[in-house]
């Protein structure tokens, strides 16, 4: 075998375990789901095989599904906004702190060591009717009976922000950390105030990180089902809850498959738009 041929083969040999795993564990099951989505659930007995567009037709035309889809995107968008608003100052502070950067980053990663479900459920102990906040309010005499704070859209967003904020901070941090601090010094020496220097120089240069963090938060937020399940009321279902409902409760696998693919297509389109304008490299930078 020639040297060139060997060098050409080498990356594929090294990649093959990973490619194999992706193929068997991701692409093949995904194909099953695609096939499933064109089957039909029968009232009794096994699902009806074949090529039926009924599930897709319902998923795309039923106003209830459409309402939940838009609501899901809305909640994800609001969550992303709050993550950006809270995460940017935090990331900026970490970037500019001199000695304890590593400790601050470690603190940021710390929540990942605790299960996401437990972190979500912890809000019940804080906001529930016998939770910390209500106990405090009643002890202080501000209210006589507990205030209903849980199980609404606001707590779903709160839970999502709690879950997604570290992703946002890390992405912005990576972007800010790559900006030469002399640039702000140069801008202020030329007559810009520190705020103007930030708006003119640092903010535009950190936009790729902000966008990458935003994309991650949005996609992860839009695909979540645990947070609305734990912290939302009956009317706060998000799209992934519909999939859960269809498959687990109604045992309607074909419908659940069609719904999950619909969400995949919508979020995939979003990622494609992001990639078209900003490129995926920024995203991998933030994860590494």
């Amino acid at each position, binding site marked *: 075998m020639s040297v060139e041929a060997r060098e050409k083969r080498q990356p594929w040999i090294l990649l093959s375990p990973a490619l194999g795993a992706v193929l068997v564990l991701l692409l093949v099951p995904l194909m099953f789901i695609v096939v499933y989505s064109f089957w039909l659930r029968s009232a009794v007995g096994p699902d009806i095989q074949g090529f039926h567009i009924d599930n897709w037709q319902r998923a795309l035309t039923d106003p209830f599904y459409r309402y939940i889809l838009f609501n899901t995107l809305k909640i994800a968008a609001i969550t992303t906004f709050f993550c950006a608003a809270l995460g940017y100052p935090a990331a900026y502070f970490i970037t500019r702190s001199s000695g304890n950067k590593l400790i601050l980053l470690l603190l940021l990663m710390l929540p990942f060591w605790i299960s996401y479900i437990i972190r979500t459920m912890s809000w019940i102990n804080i906001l529930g009717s016998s939770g910390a906040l209500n106990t405090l309010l009643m002890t202080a005499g501000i209210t006589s009976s507990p205030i209903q704070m849980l199980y609404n859209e606001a707590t779903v967003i709160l839970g999502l922000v709690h879950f997604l904020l570290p992703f946002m901070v890390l992405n912005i941090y990576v972007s800010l950390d790559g900006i*030469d601090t002399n640039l702000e*010094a*140069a*801008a202020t*020496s*030329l*007559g*810009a105030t520190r705020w103007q220097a930030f708006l003119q*120089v640092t903010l535009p240069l950190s936009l790729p990180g902000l966008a990458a963090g935003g994309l991650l938060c949005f996609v992860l937020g839009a695909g979540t089902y645990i947070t609305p399940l734990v912290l939302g009321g009956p009317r706060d279902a998000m799209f992934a809850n519909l999939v859960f409902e269809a498959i687990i409760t109604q045992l309607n696998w074909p419908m659940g498959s069609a719904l999950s693919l619909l969400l995949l297509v919508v979020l995939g389109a979003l990622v494609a738009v992001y990639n078209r304008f900003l490129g995926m490299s920024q995203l991998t930078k933030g994860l590494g």
Partner: protein
Amino acid sequence: MGAVSLNNIVKRFGTFTAVERTSLTIPEGGFTTLLGPSGCGKTTTLRMIAGLLDPTEGEIVINGKRVNDVPIHKRNLGLVFQNYALFPHKTVAENVAFGLRYRNVSKADIARRVGDALELVQLPHLGNRYPKALSGGQQQRIALARAIVIEPDVLLLDEPLSALDANLREDMRVELKNIQERIGVTTVFVTHDQSEALAMSDQIVVMSNGRIEQVGAPEDVYNTPASEFVARFLGASNILEGRCVSRGPEGAVLEVPVFGQVIVPAAKAPHLAGEGAAKLVIRAEKLLLRDTLPPDGVFSAPATIETVDYLGQSVRYFIRAGDMQLQAINMIEDRPFSAGAQVHMTLRPQDCAALPG
């Protein structure tokens, strides 16, 4: 009254003192260089003048006005960094125009002044490019244009040439000096490169360990070093430890090994108070090697050549005289001496300098 005065400034970072109590006057319109090895406090001093750092003690005066409490964006200074610090998301023209946008300059005037500044740095056609598309030398010129277009009171240059290739650095050195002379702006230049300092400066401030070692014109600093550090840092020097046996108006008589008694003119021994321990500084290029005994009026001593370091137009010899090793850098006249040759090393007293021991 200088354009910039540092009065008793001190800068501490925690327990570390970066700049010891220092006073310095930087004359208006001149080119002053802060020269020293890394960690000597030269960049810290520059950043205090710029307003990027606050002095722990003392005051900074620019154009007769105390500026300790004036934030950087109101000091009207031009700042050029080693890594250029051009805004990567703005075009060259937008970079140069940046400072003017905060100065109530009309749009037409901005365009004109940006054009003039780009003309001055000889890059008039690059306005629409982005910094990434420029070479290092071009980026440094744009950084210079951006700093001078605002007509700063003081131009501060933080090792602006050290990121450039050797050849380009020498060209930029000449050009930078020309531009500075043409616009006549008071300039403070920070470098660790002695040849840059000697070639460009009106005044050199040699610093070491947070202290000023010497302030003077390039010839003074080079020919009459005020301390052993300055003698060793600038150029190659031989320092002979000896004693001063008499100090009169005509000069100082130093008793040193190898050469015996050497009479150093008074002008070359300004820091020598009187009799006692003293050092004789002999520049390597002032120590001339001859194969015959020189005429009277010059001091000479026999020596043996140990190593010959051929440099093209000159040679650096390491020579042994008694138990001392000296170095001499001589121009090649005929052909260089070879190792092991017996020579006479000669020096003229006016080429020496005397330091207290």
